[in-house]
């Protein structure tokens, strides 16, 4: 187990390095000149050239990459002379467009996305598995058909549709709440919570639909297993048979799916954050693309990738804990 984790962590680091190189190369190949973003309207070719030199964009790519990596571990210094500014480690870059260092930007946004994603995940796991279990136990009856029909609808609608519909009805039509604006928890916890309610429901509905179907299929598979028949033949109550024997085996794959889905969301929930005006990573990513803010895009992609890679490791380790047949090595 120990060596397995070490091996996986090494593989994970290599994967991150590869990811960072690819992202770095991809954005360097873009026609946008990053130095042009530093001066806005006052740009002249001379200023751009001077800035490119000052910021190191005239250096070969591998040098630029080396500086980028160095920045992550020990920080880096941009410019020289009086225009010097420090970007302390972990420095993921500096957004000239915004005049802020990327690490700070991400640090501000990440908690919002985390609360959004984790809250939604809890909600969809509860709804999805409960509906799925119910559908499996009532297989073929109206409860099952209704649940599966609804989940097909939920699954088919894109996030922006569900989000906008919710927004329209809850805020504009029924006036159940004001249009929420994000407020930090420390300022006003109630307003903070309100800002998350609709994003949570939106995400949870989309994912719960998928999880309900997944859970139903898993449960049906499990209920047909020989060991369920054994459990019944022992004289166990139906509650124990389903609540312990079937759920334990049936819900295991749900853990994997949830871990990976959650990780993908942590990298930014672009559409939902945009609709509900949540200042999370997704919104930051979207803005950075619109603004061609290359250092910021690079950093956001890297952070998102790191979450997915890390989640894979965690899910694999968790699986070994849940399923005794899985031996890591």
């Amino acid at each position, binding site marked *: 187990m120990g060596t397995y984790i070490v091996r996986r962590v090494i593989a994970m680091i290599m994967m991150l390095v590869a990811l960072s190189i690819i992202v770095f190369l991809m954005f360097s190949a873009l026609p946008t000149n990053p130095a042009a973003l530093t001066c806005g309207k006052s740009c002249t070719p001379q200023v751009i050239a001077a800035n490119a030199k000052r910021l190191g964009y005239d250096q070969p790519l591998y040098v630029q990459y080396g500086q980028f990596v160095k920045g992550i571990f020990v920080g880096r210094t941009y410019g020289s002379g009086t225009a010097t500014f420090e970007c302390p480690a972990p420095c993921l870059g500096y957004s000239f467009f915004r005049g802020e260092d990327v690490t700070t930007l991400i640090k501000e946004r990440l908690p919002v996305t985390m609360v959004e994603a984790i809250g939604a995940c809890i909600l969809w796991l509860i709804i999805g598995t409960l509906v799925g279990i119910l559908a499996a136990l009532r297989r073929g009856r109206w409860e099952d058909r209704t649940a599966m029909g609804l989940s097909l609808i939920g699954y088919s609608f894109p996030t922006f549709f569900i989000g906008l519909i919710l927004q329209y009805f809850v805020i504009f039509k029924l006036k159940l709440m004001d249009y929420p604006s994000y407020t930090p928890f420390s300022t006003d916890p109630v307003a903070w919570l309100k800002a998350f309610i609709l994003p949570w429901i939106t995400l949870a509905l989309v994912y719960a639909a998928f999880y309900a179907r997944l859970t139903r299929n898993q449960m049906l598979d499990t209920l047909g297993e020989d060991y369920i028949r054994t459990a019944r033949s*022992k*004289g166990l109550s139906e509650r*124990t048979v389903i609540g312990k024997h079937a759920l334990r*085996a049936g819900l295991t794959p749900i853990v994997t799916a949830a871990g990976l889905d959650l990780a993908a969301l942590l990298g930014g929930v672009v559409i939902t954050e945009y609709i509900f005006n949540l200042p999370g990573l997704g919104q930051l990513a979207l803005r950075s693309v619109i603004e061609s803010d290359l250092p910021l895009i690079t950093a956001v992609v890297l952070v998102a990738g790191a979450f997915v890679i890390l989640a894979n490791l965690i899910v694999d380790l968790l699986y070994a804990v849940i399923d005794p047949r899985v031996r890591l090595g």
Partner: protein
Amino acid sequence: MSAFLEVEDLQVRFRTEDGVVNACDGVSLDVDRGRTLAIVGESGSGKSVTSGAIMGLHNRKRTEIHGSVRLDGEELLTASDARLRELRGKRMAMIFQDPLSSLHPFYKVGRQLVEAALVHQDVSRSDARRRAVDMLKRVGIPNAEHRVDEYPHQLSGGMRQRVMIAMALINDPDLIIADEPTTALDVTVQAQVIDLLKSLQGEFGTAIILITHDLGVVAETADDVAVMYAGRVVERAAVRDLFHDPKMPYTWGLLSSLPRLDEVSADRLKPIPGQPPSLINLPPGCVFRPRCQYHQFVPGNLCDTVRPELDENAPGHYARCHLTVAQKDELAAARLATHAKEGA
């Protein structure tokens, strides 16, 4: 006096999209304490459906079950779910074919045994655990104190089946239904498991229903045999009578498809030609008629139109066939004669 387990005219039907499956059509059996009844037949002949019906394991909403199953005089088919749960595992227990898939992969074997004990016995968890270790020792698992904390996948196939047997026996049931208990095991392990069942039966006086398609196991273990075909019992007799004087063409076919070590034979084994009928549209007369080579000896088209009853051909020997006893004896003698000639 009535037998410990009596099954009378048991009918089990499943509704499927293709039609109603008559999985079990008028099965009557009985078995007493300390005795072993073997049910033989090929796949889909209704052996496992019968055992499932006895245990009350079929979903009552999706299955139509008629007839009567009495355990120690108590009718099971009309018993409540709660009552059946009380009986399952306590008075009647079951051993399944594939011990790997029949044990829960996520729970330690000890836990699965303890759980079986705790449902039916008013004992503490630690007592139940002691009993579990005891049972594991009883069924011949070495190092039971350690094995009890292992998961099913850490045990060998034979060990796993021993665990299944220990689990079935943990509440001292009066009836054990063993559904192909040795099919998934190596031949050497098969013999061990059968020996184990026999010796435990001697010790506890359990009634055993052994479901198998292995006639070798039947000859070794059973006291009585019921041969099933297409959901019906087609022949029932004491094991000696069945092997020495079978009274039904299907049984003849089964026996001659058996390899024998005591005879030198240049021939290949003789399979029974044809396929068992679909249980959805059973032929109106004898279910074995399409594969039977002897129907021309029966006058008229009796075999096509009239369903033969399970008649007593000899004391305690029942067969479902329109041939007369005299005809059967004659045909059987002729069969043996050709068999001997071919062997020579």
